[in-house]
């Protein structure tokens, strides 16, 4: 009742607040870019060392559309490079999600799996995925496989940890309610424990997608001869810092887009949570 009284007159206020908020969002990036452009054009540093945003944009444009071949062999090849990286991210991330969720549910639910499986996994967890690169290369060679392996290592543990946490914190009474309605253990896991753990699993997936991009790029710098990370490292050897920056921007953008996609899926799957949050705030 109180919230209804408060909400209706607050509506127009909320709208103007929204517009100014949208503008606020752009203030810092615009100032940063403008400052950078001015500084780069001032000639204080040679343009080869610090390319201006306009030069970076030019390189990025040619890399994507290939209009004047300023990026030489990369001109117009952006889509191919992005796809190569994207597929590695997707492959490693999908593998990590499936195995991370399965292992996480097993460890979170069963004492037996917790005792047998968890210590080994927790010992592997602190080893930085990057330190696997030498082994990944001698095992899998220079191609997609070592990259996918590294992405898997980086994405697996966040999914695993969050799934374990999600399963362990499922409201015990929900499990009781399921047992009361005659659910078998399998049904309990599939129809109650898994959906109840989903909010936690999704936060693990979102951390994992970020790690996946980081490790794809790292792998491409060392163990693969294609993709955005390879372009970045290759351009560094040819002193094309504009292209290095264009590659960084591309990675950031694609990483952001994949998180956005994941968030959209999460919003769909966890639609029942939205009302909870709103009510929680109102109360």
């Amino acid at each position: 009742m109180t919230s209804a009284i408060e909400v209706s007159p607050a509506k127009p206020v909320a709208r103007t607040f929204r517009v100014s908020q949208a503008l606020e969002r752009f203030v810092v990036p615009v100032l940063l870019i403008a400052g950078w452009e001015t500084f780069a054009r001032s000639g204080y540093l040679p343009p080869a060392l610090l390319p201006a945003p306009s030069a970076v944009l030019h390189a990025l444009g040619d890399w994507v559309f290939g209009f004047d071949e300023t990026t030489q062999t990369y001109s117009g090849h952006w889509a191919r490079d992005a796809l190569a990286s994207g597929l590695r991210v997707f492959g490693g991330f999908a593998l990590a999600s499936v195995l991370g969720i399965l292992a996480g549910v097993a460890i979170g639910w069963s004492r037996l799996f917790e005792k047998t499986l968890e210590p080994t996994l927790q010992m592997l967890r602190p080893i930085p995925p990057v330190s696997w690169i030498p082994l990944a290369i001698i095992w899998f060679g220079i191609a997609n496989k070592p990259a996918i392996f590294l992405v898997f290592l980086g994405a697996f543990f966040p999914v695993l940890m969050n799934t374990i946490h999600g399963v362990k914190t499922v409201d015990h009474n929900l499990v009781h309610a399921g047992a009361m309605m005659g659910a078998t253990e399998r049904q309990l896991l599939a129809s109650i424990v898994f959906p109840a753990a989903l909010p936690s699993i999704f936060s693990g997936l979102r951390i994992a997608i970020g790690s996946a991009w980081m490790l794809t790029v790292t792998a491409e710098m060392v163990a693969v001869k294609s993709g955005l990370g390879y372009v970045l490292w290759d351009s560094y050897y040819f002193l094309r810092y504009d292209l290095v920056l264009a590659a960084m921007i591309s990675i950031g953008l694609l990483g952001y887009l994949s998180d956005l996609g994941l968030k959209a899926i999460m919003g769909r799957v966890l639609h029942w949570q939205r009302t909870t949050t709103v009510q929680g705030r109102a109360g």
Partner: protein
Amino acid sequence: MAAIELRNIVKIFADPKRGRELLTLDNIDLDIDANDFVCLLGPSGCGKSTLLNIIAGFENSTSGQALVDGVIVERPGSDRGVVFQQPTLMPWLTAIDNVAFSLKLKGVAKQERHRRAMEFIDLVGLRGFEHHHPAELSGGMNQRVGIARALLMNPRVILMDEPFAALDAQTKLEMQEELVAIWQKHRCTIVFVTHSVDEALVLGNKIVVMTRRPGRIRESVTFDLPRPRDITSPEFNDAKRRVLALIREESTRSAQVA
């Protein structure tokens, strides 16, 4: 044969932190007849919820047995519907899917599930809210969903653990009236745990008064005041005085709580 037979139930909880054991239920022996509405009345911490959990199969007794329809209880099952203190609904399911959850577990097709669930949605007065999620419903409405869910399983007994404790006074009164109406219509055995003397006297036709921990059965009172019960009538107050006296004998403090 009684619907529920409790045979010398003892429950001891281990307290490893303090290196001792806690006797919670001491030799509970009780028969509950079919179609009885039994209220387990006792102060907080007397083990009445533990007793209910043993009948539900959520907990095992240390010794003694609980039998439902002559079968020893070993695990939870759909022959015993439970209504929890909190609604305990699946937050990701709509009201109708929560009510029909037991049918889904049995593999009943969606259309049939919804058809059968709608009957109970109507019974608890939630038509129009069947596609709402628990977060969109009030506490009382969610508790109705929980009751409908238990009724749909058509269980031999319904076990209720202070289901109205979290509701406001007015909603509580409405829910109590509806529960009695449902019980009269459906003819099932209900075991209802409460610490409120008024609630026990409004609902039950048998009131089992339990003692403070370790929980024992103080006395089992049959209470056949005609329904609907007028809580201001002299008969009601006489009964209340008797029950209160029973509790007061046990402990003066617990009477204040009730």
